[in-house]
């Protein structure tokens, strides 16, 4: 049907007055070309070809209205049934166009529940806790080396407990929800003991799963981010 409709449009002929001989020969030519290009011509195409040939031969017969078995009415145009079928098919093709438009619009609206793509492109993947601890350790060593070089400025030494540091680091990270650079956590506290206390606090928070650690590249900047305990969503 599709091919037939295509030929009719291509020839710009009236669908109600199809030049059957012309269309039939073009139809058969197209089938021959398809075969030549090794496209399997389905049985339906051959049925249509036969129908066209039959209509063509009936049109060649002289009209004998008086012999029409249906009686008084003028003999029906042998093309009529084909025209009806073509018109019907054409209507459905138009509906299919409308559906295609609807589909295009609808595809712009996404509902919930569609799977999202695995985030492979992420340039700064979260580090696993074990890897994160190692990166933190490397960063700590660099920090301590620098601390050794720095002159000792504080003479009064307060006793810094891990508990105090835990609270301090937690507060700091909760305040900076977008995360902090590793070094920013050590800004106030040059001395060795305090650096180590801060570091131990970070390790503890990492173990508890309260912080996440990202590193852009090996030995690059480490970002530490507060992580809310997982809440149950729907």
């Amino acid at each position: 049907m599709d091919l037939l409709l295509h030929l009719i449009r291509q020839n710009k002929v009236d669908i109600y007055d199809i030049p059957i001989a012309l269309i039939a020969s073009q139809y058969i030519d197209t089938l021959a070309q398809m075969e030549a290009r090794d496209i399997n011509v389905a049985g339906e195409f051959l049925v249509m070809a036969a129908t066209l040939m039959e209509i063509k031969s009936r049109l060649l017969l002289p009209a004998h209205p008086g012999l029409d078995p249906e009686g008084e009415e003028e003999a029906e145009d042998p093309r009529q049934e084909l025209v009806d079928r073509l018109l019907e098919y054409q209507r459905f093709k138009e509906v299919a166009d409308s559906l295609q438009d609807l589909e295009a619009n609808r595809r712009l609206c996404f509902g919930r529940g569609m799977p999202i793509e695995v985030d492979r492109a992420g340039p700064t993947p979260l580090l696993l806790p074990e890897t994160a601890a190692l990166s933190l350790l490397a960063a700590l060593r660099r920090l301590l080396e620098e601390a050794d070089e720095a002159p000792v400025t504080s003479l009064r030494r307060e006793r810094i407990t891990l508990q105090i540091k835990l609270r301090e680091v937690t507060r700091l990270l909760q305040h900076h929800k977008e995360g902090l650079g590793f070094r920013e956590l050590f800004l106030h506290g040059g001395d060795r003991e305090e650096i180590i206390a801060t570091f131990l606090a970070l390790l503890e928070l990492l173990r508890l799963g309260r912080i996440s650690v990202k590193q852009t590249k090996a030995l690059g900047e480490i970002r530490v981010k507060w992580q809310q305990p997982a809440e149950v969503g729907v």
Partner: protein
Amino acid sequence: MLGGETVEGVESLEHSDPRLRHAVEALLFAATEPLTTDRMARVLEIDETTVYQALVDLRTDYHDGRGVHILPVAGGYQMVTHPDFAPFVGKLLAAPPTRLSRAALETLSIVAYRQPITIPEIEAVRGVSSDGVVRTLVERGLIHEAGQKETPGRPNLFVTTEEFLVYFGLKELTDLPSLETRTDAPE
């Protein structure tokens, strides 16, 4: 009443309570398919008219331009992202299902208007074998078998599904373009 007796933890609410609107919001959000006002009314244990009013209010909140809006579809309502943001959302989501082929759309139109219909009947209209395309449409959940025709061979009858309406964003089958108005056009 959206209220305490039947569901614990939520106090009784007046019908004009904004919380009713937000209860409807929670339901529409949680459902991944369109919800009818009737279904929401039964879940909330209030009457359908009240749900409808809350829904009207809620749709005003979700005015045009927001990231999400509420569409009437398949006899119910569904929350979906606004088309303006489709390029971004599309980037986030895993590859969406492929578009339907011309053959699939054509076959679907025939089923939609002539349902229930058999494969031989579809083939009579299209003039080509339609076994494969019908199977594809069944797999995509857009049409499904619905009994057999009482003719020799008892061929299966096919009808469109609710998913068909959801897929094309139609409220109901009668939203489909009319076949008649298009027939006059000779081309």
